[in-house]
């Protein structure tokens, strides 16, 4: 108890100065905002006055207009949906498999002994390097993207699940044993809740990489998707569209990660700090 209370106190001590700092920082925040606005204004003027070729840079107003245009004329939506479909399907499959195999390993250490060497080996392969192979096997459509995103996701989630499960404290296992909890129930009632923190870390890490993976693979070879649209815009030297798409992909990636932060908050905030 004593240690927990001091932990809380320390927490407070830590947060107090930062709060004060935050107030002091307002000056810097203003400077940052001014800097960003200045940069945007410069981009606008530089492009409009032809100081810089519109091939290299785009005026913020043009980027915005281009965005509105491809949303309104229906150019964007089909590509956006395809990318989302690929990333969500691949990610979901990877995440579920990662957690399931992680729990399987925890239940049956022999399975881990057998599999972990292979999984580590596949994990070590830079995923983008096997994209050509995936395309040979699965074509340039949905399937190759699905498999790539799956590979991007599954190992991070798997190793985070297993890592979290291994850290479960002896005490909790002893409690489980004292109450004669069976293997399966121990895993689901004790190990899994304990490993949640680590599992969420895995989910958040791989959410960001999954987005990267889908855009990259579509740029390499695809008939549709945001990445395809990016490559096409580059071919047509449509710089303002490139800028808009980059912003869009960034926002999507951030939202994807934020979604898991929210999910983690909803599942865990009652009993621990998230």
């Amino acid at each position: 108890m004593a240690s927990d209370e001091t932990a809380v106190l320390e927490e407070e001590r830590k947060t107090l100065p930062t709060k004060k700092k935050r107030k002091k920082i307002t000056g810097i925040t203003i400077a940052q905002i001014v800097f960003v606005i200045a940069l945007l204004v410069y981009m606008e003027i530089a492009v409009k006055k032809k100081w810089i070729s519109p091939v290299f840079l785009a005026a913020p107003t043009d980027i915005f207009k281009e965005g509105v245009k491809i949303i309104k004329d229906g150019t964007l939506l089909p590509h956006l949906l395809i990318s989302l479909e690929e990333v969500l399907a691949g990610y979901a499959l990877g995440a579920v498999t990662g957690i399931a195999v992680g729990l399987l390993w925890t239940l049956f250490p022999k399975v881990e002994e057998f599999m972990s060497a292979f999984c580590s080996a596949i994990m070590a392969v830079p995923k983008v390097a096997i994209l050509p192979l995936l395309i040979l096997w699965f074509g340039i459509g949905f399937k190759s993207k699905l498999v790539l995103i799956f590979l991007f996701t599954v190992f991070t989630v798997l190793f985070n699940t297993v890592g979290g499960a291994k850290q479960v404290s002896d005490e909790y296992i002893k409690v489980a044993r004292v109450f004669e909890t069976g293997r399966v129930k121990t895993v689901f009632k004790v190990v899994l809740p304990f490993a949640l923190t680590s599992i969420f870390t895995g989910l958040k890490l791989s959410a960001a990489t999954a987005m990267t993976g889908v855009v990259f693979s579509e740029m390499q070879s695809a008939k549709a998707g945001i990445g395809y649209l990016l490559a096409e815009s580059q071919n047509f030297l449509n710089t303002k569209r490139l800028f808009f798409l980059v912003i869009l992909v960034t926002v999507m990636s951030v939202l994807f990660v934020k979604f898991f932060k929210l999910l983690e908050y909803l599942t865990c905030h009652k009993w621990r700090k998230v």
Partner: protein
Amino acid sequence: MPSIRIENVGKIYEDADGNNVTALNNINLTINDGEFVSIVGPSGCGKSTLLEIVAGLQPATSGNVYLDEKPITGPGRDIGVVFQSAALFPWRTVRKNMAYGMEIAKVPKEEQKKRIDKYLDLMGLKDFADKYPSQLSGGMRQRAGIARTLIMNPKVTLMDEPFSAVDHLTRSTLQEELIRIHQTEKKTVLFVTHDISEAVLLSDRVILLTPRPGRIQEEYVIKTKQPRSRTDDEIIKISAQIIADISRGAEFKEAEYFI
């Protein structure tokens, strides 16, 4: 009927370097039905080890432990264990933590609720039933941990320094509660502590172990009726006796090394 019989129990650990560490040596002890027995001794003498062997959490290297004449081979519902740090599951509320053992034992829901309400009341945790362990004080956590064990109605309760992590005042309250519960339920208790006066205050019998490897050095029977006071003559006398015997044990130990 003797409730627990510890027979020639020894324990040898192998440490990380592969050396053998003898933690316990030839322990013989019988704990009678309804008796409250404490084990005291210097740090590292094997108290927790002995408790875990009795709990069936780890095997003895030699000897046997019997519960009602049946050898203990693993953890079981007849033996409840309270851990030093309460070890509540942080993702469960107090109520859910108390329900854990009953959940595993598939006790019907209404019965669970009835017993939980009774123990919430008994432990003064009514207002905290739906709080998580991180929202409780150390004393409350310990009470919830004790409730989680007692609620299963085990024949024997083992406690490993259950009050060592709480402040002095809370400890006195918890000690009183424990005595009260023991008086009403007459359950067999094996209690590990390094607090001599706590042991003497609570127990019918106190067992003193020698420094590692732990052997039984001395046994003290405390006859004063409960409720006792720390200032009772016998309590003071036996506490002083034990403290004197502990330093004697340490001397023995040193002498052994020199020979």
